[in-house]
Each structure stands twice: as C-alpha cells, then as structure tokens.
C-alpha cells in the first residue's frame, strides 16, 4: 500500500514538472494512479513497462486535461484578447445600430419602420429555431450546397490542372469557358429549369455553376504561377508525367486551388439563395422569401442571419482543411510565423 502511495506522488510530480508529458509516460504511470489495481504489482509495473498493455482509457485524460488547460492558458495572450475584444466591438456596433434604428423607428431616407427589433428576431428564433420546418430548410440548403460544390470541385480542379498544364487542352476548353464565365449563375435559372427534370437538380446545377468558374480559374492560375524551376527539378529527379502531376503540380497549385474553393463556396451560396428565392421549394432562401410574402418580418431577418452563419461555417471549414493540408504555408514568405 505504501509503495502505491509513493508511486502516486511520483506520478503527480511528473505531471507538474512536464506540462506535456510523453504519451509513454502516461502509459507507464496509469496503473499506479488506478486504485483498483493490485498494490503489489503496482510498484513494479512502472519499471517493467516494456511489456505493458494499453492503458485504461479513463486514466489518461486526467493528465491530458491538465495539458489542455495549460495550453488554453498559454494561448490567452494580450494579442488574442485584443483581437477578441475588437471582434466584440465590431459585432456589437452592428447590433447597436440595428437596435437604435428599430427602437426609435429612424427614418432618414432608409426606413426602419417595418424592420423588426433584435428582440423580435430572437423571439422568432426561439419559436421556430427548433421547429422541423426551419431545420429541414437548413438541411436542404446544405445538401444542395454540398452537392453543387463538390461536383464543381471534382470537375473544376482536374480540368483546371489539365488546362494549366497542356496548351492543347487550353486551346480546346478556354473559348467555351470564356463565353460561359461572364453569365451569372442567376441568369441560368430559366435555362436550368428547362434543362433539368426536377426542381432539385436545377437548383444544384445553379449552385454548381456558381462554384465552378472560380475553382476552375484559380486552379489554372495556380498551375501557371508554379515556379518552372520546380518542374525542371522534378524532371531531373526522374519524375514521370503522371508523377509530375501528382507530386509537383497538384501540391504546388494547392494554395491557389484553396483560394478558388473559398471564393467558389461564397459564390455558390449567392447562387443557391437566389435560385431558392426564384424557383425553390424549401431551403433557407425560400424560407426568407416566403417570410416576405407572408409579411413575417422577423423571419426575414432570421433567414438572413441563418444564411450568414451557414456561409461563415462553410468558408471556415474550407480554411481549416486548407491549413491542415498545407502546413508549410505557415512558414512561407509573408506567412503567419
């Protein structure tokens, strides 16, 4: 029993001394911290750790939590506090403007007469926020975005790489791209309704059109801006044509491809909402337009805020995936560090 107590002390002091203990250390110590283990075996276990099985999962988090907490504390710096404070000021100012405008029913060219107050919108949110209708609308919009966006990515990125790399592919595809590109996705609504067998497909198509051109053009630009010396270096190192694509051109264009994905996602939302407003059944755009038709003013604002948050979440995910896939950019000239 005494030996167990000593082992415990060692364990604790280890945790205190090293804010980030090695995972192996946590494995070694885990039986000592577990009161249910036999006392006799405990003292020996930390030493003969080589043959030790996997640790009980409930013990390791004790150490990890300390680590997580310390990491969190370390991240609270003056810099970050200032950034967060300014973000609050920025969003707070928007709400204040909205609040004052609606409270005093301000009318100086723009009219707040019919604009709902923040409280009315909040009430609307609590009423419909968890209602099936509202959530289904969100789910349908998200599904349309994902479908349209991923199809645009699946076609736009490979085609962009091919156009960027091969002059002949470029000669073949660019004339048609240049003609179709200036047509906004919204202008495709009537044509899309005629082309596609059902409403759903036509809305996904419009979303696709919106996302496609930014993705395609940024991918082409990514290939063109790739330093030629890297391609020559890869060729001298024996890269075949396919290897060149996979191991040099694709990773080299990735920063531009992600710019294209972020822009494409933005345009996809614009196109989707417009399409839903014009021809839709369901969706956040439809929800917002329907609210206007039904003179349900708080629901209009709720719809708008919902669109804002969904768009923010989508571009946030793209940024996150981007920084996970391209860790080297943190060190690039003009990078974060």
């Amino acid at each position, binding site marked *: 029993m005494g030996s167990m107590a000593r082992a415990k002390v060692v364990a604790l002091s280890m945790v205190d001394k090293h804010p980030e203990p090695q995972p192996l250390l946590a494995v070694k110590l885990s039986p000592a911290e577990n009161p249910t283990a036999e006392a006799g075996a405990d003292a020996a276990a930390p030493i003969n750790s080589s043959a030790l099985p996997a640790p009980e999962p409930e013990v390791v988090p004790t150490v990890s939590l300390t680590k997580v907490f310390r990491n969190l504390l370390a991240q609270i710096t003056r810099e970050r506090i200032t950034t967060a404070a300014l973000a609050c000021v920025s969003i707070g100012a928007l709400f204040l403007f909205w609040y004052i405008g609606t409270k005093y029913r301000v009318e100086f060219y723009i009219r707040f007469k019919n604009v709902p107050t923040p409280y009315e919108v909040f009430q609307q949110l609590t009423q419909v926020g968890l209602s099936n209708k509202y959530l289904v609308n969100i789910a349908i919009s998200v599904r349309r975005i994902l479908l349209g966006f991923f199809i645009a990515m699946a076609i736009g990125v490979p085609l962009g790489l091919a156009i960027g790399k091969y002059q002949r592919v470029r000669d073949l595809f660019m004339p048609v791209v240049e003609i179709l590109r200036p047509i906004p996705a919204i202008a495709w609504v009537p044509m899309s309704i005629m082309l596609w067998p059902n409403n759903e497909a036509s809305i996904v198509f419009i979303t696709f059109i919106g996302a496609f051109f930014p993705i395609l053009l940024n991918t082409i630009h990514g290939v063109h801006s790739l*330093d030629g010396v890297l391609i*020559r270096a890869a060729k001298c190192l024996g890269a075949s044509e396919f290897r060149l694509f996979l191991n040099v051109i694709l990773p080299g264009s990735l920063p531009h491809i992600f710019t294209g994905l972020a822009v494409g996602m933005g345009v996809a939302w614009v196109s989707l909402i417009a399409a839903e407003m014009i021809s839709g059944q369901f969706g956040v755009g439809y929800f917002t337009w329907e609210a206007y038709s039904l003179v349900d003013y708080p629901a209009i604002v709720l719809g708008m805020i919902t669109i804002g948050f969904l768009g923010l979440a989508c571009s946030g995910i793209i940024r996150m995936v981007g920084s996970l896939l391209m860790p080297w950019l943190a060190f690039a000239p003009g990078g974060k560090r």
Partner: protein
Amino acid sequence: MIMATAMAETQKGLIDVRDMGVTFGANDNKIIAVDNVSLNVQPGEFVSLIGPSGCGKSTLLSIVAGFVKPTSGDAKLDGNAITKPGSDRGVVFQQYSLFPWLSVRKNVEFGLKMAGLEQSKRNTTARALLDLAELLSFENHYPDQLSGGMKQRIGIVRALATSPQVLLMDEPFGALDTQTRVVMQEILTNIWQQFKISVLFITHDIEESIFLSDRIYVMTARPGRIKAEIKVPLPRPRRAEMTDTPEFMNLVQELKGLIREESLAAMAPEIKDRGLSGFGMKVGPKGVGDIF
C-alpha cells in the same frame, strides 16, 4: 589524356559535347546563343564554364541536362545521346528549387520516390545524405524555414540522392552572400571528393571557378564559343588559404584578362570602341533633336 581515357573505361560520367550550336528564333529575329562549342568532362573531373552574362553558358548546361535540344551538334553522356532530363544527371539550380510543400527529408527522398524505392530505404539514404550536409537536425523542417545556404546544400544532396553519374550546377551559389559562398565552396569540394563524380559547374565568379575546378573553359560573349581552356594545377584538397598563394593570384589575373575582353565585347559597340573611359560622356542623346 591517356590516363583520362583509361579512367573512362572503369568509371562512368563522361560528358562529351561536340560542335554544339544553338539558335533561338528564326529569320530576322534569329539569335545565335551558342556557336560550335566542343567540350568534355572526364569521369570524376570538376570542370567550370565561365563567361560574361548572356554568353550561353546556362544554355549549354540546359542541353546537357536535357531541357533544351541543340540546333546542331550533339551532347553525350557515356556515349549515349542526351535527349531528355533524367536522374543520371543531377542538377543544382541557381534559384532555390526545393519543393516548399515537402519537408527537408522528403525533398531529398523525392528522386528515390520517383525511382520507386520503398519508404524505409528512401528514409535511410536521405538521412545519411542530410548527415553529410550537416543538416540532419533540420530533416523535418520546411524549406522556407531555412537560410539560403542551407537550401542550396539540400539542393546538392537531393541531386546526389539518385546516385547520378554527373552533377550539373548552374551558378548554384550566385544568390548567396560572400561569406556563405566561401563556406559552400569548401563543402562542395568535400562532397565532390567523397562522391567522385563528374561536375560541370557554371559560374561568372573567377575565384570560385579556380578554387573548385580541375579545368576551366572560358566562353566568349554571344555568340558563345570556347575562347580558352585553362588547367588548374593547384593541389587537392583545396583550402580557403590557397586563394592567397601566387599560383592562385596568377590564374586569377590570367582569367580576368580573358573575361574582361569578353565583358566589354558583350556591351554596346560604342563602349567597346572607346573602352570604359568613354562611358557616360557621349553615349546619351545630346539634345531634343536626337530624341525626336
């Protein structure tokens, strides 16, 4: 020469360029970049190519590397005509050419990966090479985290990873500061002596070419021809102190004379006629009438 031929039978890495000519453009815009150049690099030899800027020395290297096809003549490596780039010729470029998305070790492994070598063998080779370049502790860094000299050292060992027969270097230290250059030159001679491979080294730095080479080709201004071939009899291994010896100084003077003529020839004809003393006085327009 007899000795060199005997070596060629046992050792690979013979670069042979014959009657090489390169022209760009056609008709009125035709530019003769390289004219009737013949040169060779014997197996295990360090040869520099020096000349004024724009003389076609980089073009010559591009042909040996396989990026550019000559208009006339041919380039051979161990008797085989060079048609395209390949891992039998390692190339080190003037610009930093490491892949920024790969860690230092993955950069060195690149050629081995292209050759289809399995991960564990790639890893061992890359780590051994990085150890040689004294950069093993940086194996997991990205190129953008390193200094220029480090990047070029990695560029060199990356080119050596596939065990090429020759190393082609296109002003590899041109972008480095003077102190780093001197260190890099010593490192390069060490690596070259360990690997015993042929090197064709392009530079416009006279001291650098003498310090590194067994033999130096001096090229003329455009169109590039071989103006002179100079042997460097300095003993190996070369040390930084050797640059102060009379033998070294004499070679510098000899090369300076040769290069200066060509640098002047490469400039405008007026300067060539009057020499540099006339520069600035009569070159510009005299009045408005000269402009319109």
